[in-house]
């Protein structure tokens, strides 16, 4: 308010200055010009005031000019009286012409100002639409919208989106995340009826804010809530139109982002569906293959066992035993995976001798690794490591099982451990074909199987996924790399050594 008065005082002072200038010019030229022509100098001052300051300052200039012209140039000079009736008429017409001219000039000026304002608004809207187009997440988008509305309309803004049955604040400028009950009711009504509610509206006018729906062709996508400390109507008709433009743009952008999210969700569902299909394929294949061998061997033994020699009978019995073991491992993997996904894996960390756990995993994998050579190089001074021995043994077993599957018989599998700062690393190195570099991360995905080696003995595609799940549950990590000295894969299992888990010693013992 204070500032506005200062501006208008300045305008009147400026107008007076124009008139003073005209007066100076008139006094300087009065020797050479008729007094009626000097009136033109004052007319110029009035027009200048109109173009520069608008209507009211120019009318003021008009009045001052009439008085000054009368006082300084119309006889008797230096008085406000006029002797010649002709001059009265002249002064009257001067006043009329000045007023009409100032009116016209002031209107031209207002139009120019309005045009500039429109250009600025258009520019702002354009910038806003660019900002919206570049927003990727819904939160960015809502924040940009709230900020823009607050900036352009000089109001406080909240944006609400539907959430279940009701609506909830998702952005605000200045930041705001809760509404009082009255406002929330107005917002809800606005959302339900797709019409304005709250302050200044027909419905719930007692609310602190005015709530307006943001609409697209498909319907409302959200709610804008506005308030300000200014008394009187919240928005002028112009501001209301501007708000509509902002709101339409924001609504379209919100719809775009929501559609993108829907597409993402659909893609995720498709992925889940693919996994489920893979699971069913895996289960039916991996359960039925060993079952077919078992059933076939067992029925052969019972129906034709008498006609077979001892070697053949032993062979069939061995097949039954081996395939049952395989089936058991597969079911074990399914159980482990289910427990992992159900979040039922709660590691029981104890200080464990890694070598011991590796030893028992090797013992269990004895039959699978019968055709391979195993070399061990475990640091004798390795400290005890906090881990869940049951889970870790399963991890080592699965990696060994994997190595046995993908490497040729007679090749060597090397198991080594080393201390790496505050971590312990166990590496299992084989002499197989290695992992295709493009799939080095995917091999830990569920149901992933290395391509091209999908021989009859290929596994369930669960073993390594379980390894990763178990290692992460224990705060560790498993990675696969390829050997650089020759073909072959390296699986590295790392585990943190908790602070304080220093090497326990045998000092209490006296030999």
């Amino acid at each position, binding site marked *: 308010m204070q500032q506005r008065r200062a501006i208008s005082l300045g305008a009147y002072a400026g107008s007076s200055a124009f008139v003073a200038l005209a007066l100076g010019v008139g006094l300087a030229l009065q020797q050479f010009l008729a007094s009626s022509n000097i009136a033109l100098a004052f007319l110029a001052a009035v027009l200048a005031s109109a173009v520069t300051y608008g209507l009211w300052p120019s009318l003021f200039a008009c009045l001052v000019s009439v008085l000054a012209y009368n006082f300084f140039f119309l006889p008797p000079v230096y008085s406000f009286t006029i002797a010649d009736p002709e001059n009265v008429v002249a002064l009257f017409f001067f006043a009329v012409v000045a007023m009409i001219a100032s009116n016209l000039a002031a209107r031209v000026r207002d139009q120019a100002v309005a045009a500039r304002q429109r250009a600025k608004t258009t520019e702002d809207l354009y910038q806003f639409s660019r900002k919206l187009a570049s927003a990727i997440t819904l939160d960015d988008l809502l924040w940009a919208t709230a900020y823009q509305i607050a900036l352009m309309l000089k109001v406080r803004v909240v944006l609400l989106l539907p959430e279940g049955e009701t609506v909830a604040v998702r952005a605000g400028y200045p930041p705001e995340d809760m509404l009082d009950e009255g406002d929330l009711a107005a917002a809800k009504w606005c959302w339900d009826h797709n019409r304005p509610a709250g302050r200044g509206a027909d419905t719930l006018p007692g609310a602190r804010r005015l709530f307006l729906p943001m609409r697209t062709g498909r319907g409302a996508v959200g709610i804008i809530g506005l308030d300000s400390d200014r008394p009187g109507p919240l928005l002028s008709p112009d501001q209301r139109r501007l708000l509509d433009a902002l709101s339409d743009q924001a609504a379209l952008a919100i719809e775009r982002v929501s559609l993108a999210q829907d597409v993402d969700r659909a893609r995720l569902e498709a992925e889940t569906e693919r996994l489920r299909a893979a699971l069913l394929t895996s289960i039916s294949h991996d359960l039925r293959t060993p079952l077919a061998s078992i059933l076939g061997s067992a029925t052969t033994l019972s129906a034709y066992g008498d006609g077979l020699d001892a070697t053949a009978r032993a062979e069939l019995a061995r097949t039954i035993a081996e395939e049952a073991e395989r089936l*058991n491992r597969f079911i074990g993997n399914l159980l482990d995976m289910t427990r992992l996904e159900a979040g039922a894996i709660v590691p029981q960390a104890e200080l464990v001798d890694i070598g011991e756990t*590796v*030893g028992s995993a*090797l*013992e269990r994998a004895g039959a699978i690794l019968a055709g391979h050579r195993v070399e061990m190089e475990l640091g004798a001074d390795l400290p005890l490591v906090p881990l869940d021995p049951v889970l870790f043994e399963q991890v080592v077993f699965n990696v060994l099982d994997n190595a046995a599957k993908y490497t040729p018989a007679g090749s060597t599998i090397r198991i080594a451990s080393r201390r790496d700062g505050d971590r312990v690393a166990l590496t299992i190195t084989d002499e197989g074909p290695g992992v295709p570099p493009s799939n080095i991360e995917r091999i830990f995905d569920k149901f992933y199987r290395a391509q091209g080696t999908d021989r009859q003995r290929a596994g369930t595609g669960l073993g390594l996924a379980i390894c990763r799940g178990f290692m992460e549950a224990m705060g560790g990590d498993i990675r696969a790399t390829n050997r650089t000295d020759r073909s072959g894969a390296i699986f590295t299992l790392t585990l943190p050594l908790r602070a304080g888990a220093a090497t326990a010693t045998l000092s209490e*013992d*006296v030999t």
Partner: protein
Amino acid sequence: MNVAPPRVLVVEDEPPISRFLRTTLTAQGYHVLEAECGKSALDMITRNPPDVVVLDLGLPDLDGLDVIRKVRDGGSAVPIVVLSSRSDEAGKVEALDLGADDYVTKPFGVDELLARLRAALRHRLQQQGERQVFRSGDLTVDVVRRIVTAHGEEIKLSPREYDLLRLLVTHAGKVLTHKFILRNVWGADTDVQYLRIYIRALRQKIEREPDRPQHIVTETGVGYRLRASD
């Protein structure tokens, strides 16, 4: 020596499993008794105690753990070998702590079950008159003279290492839980990490390949077992 065949009570509610156990155990010279639920098993143990019990932990009426508890509360020391499922280490440990002698994890090979049964029966006989020298592969332990030899050499053990090995020898072939070993060697519930360190030390002295032990076997999540040659 002509003794009566050992009587084994099989407590199992799954007919296919009890059928193959009956066939196999009979063929191996056992006299097989059968019970399908916990109540009848308790009844049979009280009325006419068998030499050894094979107990499935998942029974229709009573929890297998309750059966063990009731048998031991009733004062019976009959050896019990538990059949348990994979990924139930806690259940195995609990069964052993309650007084079961050993366990076999389903699914199991019959040789494994027979080894457990033999160890359980032998342990009962041993308590009546312990042998002086334990021999298994390249390991011998003379419990009277306190002399241990492995791969042909006499091994020097610290007193506590010897106590540990001695305990394992006394229960050769049987699984011993961490808790049981700690209580018997250290006299209190010490931290299990001490046990792990002593086992490592012991293996380095008596095993040919300490990382791939042939004598002291780790039963992950449960305890240790000294392998016994039958």
